[in-house]
């Protein structure tokens, strides 16, 4: 793909992550942003990628029961005695 090519949607969807990671060359970043200027479906697409990242991130909020806490603190007291 040359620097002066117009970017189509199929190329766009493959470059979304590089764009979000700031890993595109300046030329490709300009082509990417030019595509975003006129292509509504690709605006939806990149928004869906952002939604994906947010939704996956929320998995860390599902708390795990701290079942091990008491055991580990007991182990700590053992360690303290012997250290």
């Amino acid at each position, binding site marked *: 793909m040359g620097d002066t090519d117009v970017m189509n949607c*199929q190329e766009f*969807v493959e470059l979304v992550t*590089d764009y979000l990671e700031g890993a595109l060359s300046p030329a490709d970043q300009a082509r990417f942003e030019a595509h975003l200027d006129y292509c509504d*479906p690709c605006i939806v697409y990149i928004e869906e990628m952002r*939604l994906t990242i947010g939704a996956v991130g929320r998995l860390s909020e599902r708390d795990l029961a*701290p079942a*091990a806490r008491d055991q580990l603190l007991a182990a*700590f007291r053992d360690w303290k005695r012997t250290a």
Partner: protein
Amino acid sequence: MTATAPAEPNDRMLLLAVRRGDEAAFASLIDRYHPSLVRIATLFVRDYETAEEVAQETWIGVLKGLDRFEERSSFRTWLFSILTNQAKRRGERERRIVPFAALSRPADGDAEPAVDPDRFIPPGEEWAGYWASPPRDLVENPERALLSAEAQAVIDAAIAALPPNQQAVIRLRDVEGWEAADVCNALGLTATHQRVLLHRARSRVRQAIEPYVEQRAVLADG
């Protein structure tokens, strides 16, 4: 954004307190990192119980290695290296582990397109490579739509179906909130390969959430 991005000085202060025998400081580190350790351990072992055990063994490893911890590396990096060693040792004993090499080796799924090629206008036609069946407009509050139990289950299933290397990258980056460089170090990936894996993984999950965030097609029949 994610829960585990604590300031480094805090970790170090806690660690110094642990060295002095401060039990509350040790409890704080457990509260801060244990859930993440268990989640990361599930990348290497096949069931939750084993992951919990590996995470517990990791804390024992922390206590045993306290004197050897060098302030040059971050506590989190050190913690993770103990975790992977424990997981590997466990794997050798039980032969149930996901081979660590599988996390850095290129896999079949790495080269798959982000979107089914059938959804674009085929080569040779005018507007080749532009959407033939574009994404539909988003629903009013897509973030909320993704909070439903059904959508969460779909996201879980999409992540679980990924090849191990993609799963490791998306979970460390997007669930645990790690920086790209830390993921590369932990898994032995180049920066480029890490981005490829992240891209495949996020693209697969995006595909799975489509039905929850896009408006339904208006039926043509009246």
